[in-house]
């Protein structure tokens, strides 16, 4: 699954990661909000970013019908392991969570959270935010403080 934002960036979600999202849709797992982090690699030469892995809710996270709070614990350990095992090429690329609506749009809390995370400037310059809806998956990024949606390549 490939998304892009103008000529600036291409984002590919690898099959194994996409399968995990698809499982939420297939099994209709939307009773509680779920989420996690996006992990992948940067291809500087092609302005392409690849999401290779995602994390799913960990023990310390808080899930309810209309909210998901992700803690650091668990996710950081998975990230570190993937970083080491990939010869230090895999990096944190953003967040994902589910919405119990067919074509998801970010809430006020989501938007504020995404802006805040983009200001951290500790990881990749490009960060992505995915919402998995009951029918489709949508992707956003933050460019110069503004949230923009990526288009899906058909």
């Amino acid at each position, binding site marked *: 699954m490939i998304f892009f934002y103008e000529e600036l960036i291409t984002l590919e979600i690898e099959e194994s990661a996409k399968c995990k999202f698809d499982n939420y849709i297939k099994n209709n797992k939307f009773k509680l*909000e779920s*989420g996690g*982090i996006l*992990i992948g*690699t*940067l*291809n*500087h*030469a092609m302005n392409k970013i690849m999401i290779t892995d995602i994390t799913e809710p960990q023990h310390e996270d808080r899930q309810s019908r*209309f*909210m*998901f*709070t*992700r*803690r*650091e614990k668990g*996710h*950081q350990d998975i*990230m*570190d392991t993937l*970083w080491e095992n990939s*010869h*230090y*090429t*895999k*990096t*944190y690329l953003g*967040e994902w*969570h589910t*919405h*119990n*609506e067919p074509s*998801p749009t970010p*809430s006020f*809390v*989501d938007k504020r*959270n995404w802006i805040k*995370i983009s200001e*951290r400037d*500790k*990881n*990749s*310059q490009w960060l992505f935010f995915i919402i998995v809806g009951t029918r489709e998956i949508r992707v956003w990024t933050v460019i110069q403080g503004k949230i923009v949606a990526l288009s899906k390549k058909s």
Partner: protein
Amino acid sequence: MVNLQKEFLDFHDKIKLSDENTILREKREILLNKLSDNICDEAVTYTTFNQGSYAMGTGIKPEDDDYDIDVGVKFDINKDNYSDPIKVKKWVRDALDGHTKSVEIRRSCVTVTYQKDDEPIYHVDFAIYAAANDDGKMYIAKGKEFSTEENRKWELSDPQGLITTIKDKYKDDDAKQFRRVIRYLKKWRTHNFSSDGNGTPTGISLTILAYNYFSVSKTYDWSKQKDVYDDFTALYNLARSIKNSFSYKWNETDSQWYHTISTDLPVEPYNNLFEKMTDKQLNSFYTKVDTLLTKLDEVKGKDKRSDACAVLIKIFGEDFPSTVDKSMVGTSESASL
């Protein structure tokens, strides 16, 4: 700046054409057997040796898969008894002919090209030498099959002396850094010059620039009791020295100032390795060295590993690893209301 030594070593592992490359060794053996089986009775005895970047330990893998194997063939002949060097080249050409699609007498060698689907997959260059001369020196056979008299000649040459000179310049781990940096330069060349023609400095000219201007970059780590090598700095210093070795020269024909460079082969025939490039081409070489330095300065200014790698990938292509610092995932909160 970030320490990139590990990235440089990984990069080097990826691009180096190693001595143990079995494909190349096999191809060479096949042809050498062919040569000894088929060479005509008229031909005198000979010995062979490896030459070229492969023999110097400075080869890089070609990106187009057109591997280049260089073999020297030393005939026990006195050049004065063979006024026509083409005669000797033909011994080799005829022995190898019929084996593949193309065996061709070129100016400086006999070239066997293997093809697959009309694409050359590798070629073997046989340089032919007269090795039993009155002056004790070696001469290479120059000229094509139908070259005029004045273009057929025996030229003074010292290919084995060249290999020894390069190999003996540094020892052990210092020599390894020397060879790594030569490979970085060659990879830079691949990504920054068009592949054909005289506008591109040759591999040997870059090797000799490194021979003249490289200096080892390492520090001693007392806690680990060993040398710690810094390939980035070695490359940076070499690029700067190369840039400084250009001179500014007025070109009458073009009515223009150009940055030009010359450097001599450190063995016979001591020719200027840039003699085939025009002043304008040399000036463009200068501009590229200057850009390389600017980009390396940019790398120095980066504090994020991913940003430093991004610049290096622009210089060297995607064989340079795209590594990142450890990520900090922090926390996150979302709500759908």
